[in-house]
């Protein structure tokens, strides 16, 4: 590692207390998810809540444990928007017409 690269790695990496708080929130959200499994919610509502909670948990992990919150904004802009766009493109399969495979009798 060059002296320049060594210098740019000496940034603040967070405190024990901060990591413990993030861990606690992750456990709490997991607990809520498991509790929801006991309730007989309609699948679309259940799916929406679970995916929402998972996205919050993912954001916490990426921001604090993976340190992205403390990196340059350019790194975030390089990585996240392109990934979100690609995932959104995958979801194109869920437009109502795409499930016509069921009606076509493909078993």
């Amino acid at each position, binding site marked *: 590692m060059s002296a320049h690269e060594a210098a740019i790695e000496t940034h603040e990496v967070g405190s024990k207390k901060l990591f413990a708080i993030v861990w606690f929130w992750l456990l709490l959200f*997991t607990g809520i998810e498991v509790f929801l499994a006991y309730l007989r919610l309609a699948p679309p509502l259940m799916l929406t809540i679970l995916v929402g909670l998972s996205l919050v948990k993912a954001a916490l992990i990426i921001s604090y*444990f993976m340190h992205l919150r403390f990196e340059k904004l350019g790194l975030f802009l390089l990585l996240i928007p392109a990934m979100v766009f690609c995932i959104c493109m995958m979801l194109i399969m*869920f437009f109502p017409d795409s499930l016509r495979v069921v009606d076509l009798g493909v078993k």
Partner: protein
Amino acid sequence: MSQAEHEGIIESAWSGGRAPFAINSNKLGMWLFIISDSLTFSALLVAYAYVRLANPDWPRPFEIWPAIAKSTLMTLILLSSSLTMVLGVAAAHRGDRAKTIKYLIWTMIFGAAFVVIHATEWYTLMVTDHVTPWSNPWGVPLFGGTFFGLTGLHMLHVTIGVVYLAIVAAGFKSDKYDASDVEVSGLYWHFVDLVWMFIFPLVYLMSVNLKG
């Protein structure tokens, strides 16, 4: 003032010889790998959701005990491993070699525990319930394919992660690797944790059998 500035040449962050994102190349490489791997898992999860939606009689075989209890325990284990990993990275940046190794060993123990518990669950499904990637007693054959495909690829990542951390810990102990290498291995480990945060609710909690 640098030589280029002294000579009046406008230097761009993109002109080479600099790190525009203020991270080293190893870390940028790991981030790019994580993005590509996240798309692999996203594709698998989207495919799972699609075939599930296309099959109204999709089975819901996971009873609260033992399947949901086990998978919840596995989630707690992975979250705890992420905490020990991030504490290990912080210790490495402080230059505390002994604590770094200790936290990395705890992370590996948690990772190994996750794989062992997951393996017992696979064993129950395959031997007791006769579920294979091609068939299962509950009707929709794709259940086994999507379940084993998703959880199998994730379990492979965890196993590789444990080996990776062992190599990094040994290298850090012998001064072959430095704190930035520990941090890069941490990025991989947290990603493995992050993927499980989607597999657990979508595969397990959406298929709870409350009658059991």
